[in-house]
């Protein structure tokens, strides 16, 4: 997948600084307390601080669990990964599990190179994450 593949987040409006890194939250699970969070677009210096802000606001919604879907994120730099580490630390405090799904090969490689792939619970799909 090219780093510049925009097939998925191209429809509609152009991707610029103003596109929300978090497209939306859906509540799943029998109790509707599992937050399925969909991220979108390249997470780089343009958008990583917004990404972090939006991520760190998630615990305020009091989810029982968070599933972060990265299938529409073609590219992520180290600051994006760092934001996820921050979120993970905050959620661990409250014993809220975090699962990452839909990592494209390029995004997965950033986790591998920074050796952070082992500290995250990474699942293939949202479906798999919800069933586990």
């Amino acid at each position, binding site marked *: 997948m*090219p*780093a*510049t593949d925009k097939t998925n987040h191209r429809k509609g409006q152009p991707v*610029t*600084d103003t596109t929300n890194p978090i497209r939306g939250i859906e509540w799943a699970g029998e109790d509707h307390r599992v937050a399925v969070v969909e991220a979108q677009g*390249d997470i*780089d*210096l*343009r958008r990583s601080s917004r990404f972090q802000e939006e991520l760190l606001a998630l615990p305020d919604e009091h989810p029982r669990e968070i599933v972060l879907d990265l299938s529409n994120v073609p*590219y992520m*730099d*180290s*600051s994006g*990964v*760092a*934001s996820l*580490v*921050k979120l993970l630390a905050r959620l661990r405090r409250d014993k809220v599990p975090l699962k990452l799904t839909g990592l494209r*090969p*390029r995004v997965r*490689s*950033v986790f591998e*190179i*920074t*050796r*952070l792939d082992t*500290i995250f619970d990474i699942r293939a799909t949202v479906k798999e994450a919800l069933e586990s």
Partner: protein
Amino acid sequence: MTPPPPPPPPQPVRLTISSTPAHLPVVRAALESFCEVAGLNERESGCVVLAVDEALTNVIRHAYHGQHDKPIEVSLATVSQPSGQQTLEIYLRDWGTQVAPEQIRSRDLSDVRPGGLGVHIIRNCMDEVSYCHVPEGGTCLRLTKRITGKASR
């Protein structure tokens, strides 16, 4: 203005941008395509794109302190070594604050915490990484990557 001298073969590409994050995707796209034409495989070019993006991010943040209107030059070339090995060579040039090269270092990754991952990525993704001060001001970063993919040129 006299015409610039023709570049030596294999012919390089130079991108001159200002230090705004808005230009990062432009550099990534150009670099991705250059890597493909140069014969890098997909894994290799993903790594190179990531390394250069991290290095540019560092220039914008640390050498230019977040100012968006400062110049950055990115030069891309493929070089044939006498051994026949093909190498991708990338130069990043800025005119910002110089920092002692030994201060540009990655931290211990076993300590899991955010931040300080960029330099690790750069060193991990590229075969050679060297920072040098340009006497006239600013820093030059030279990055190389051996082309192991089925190189057809």
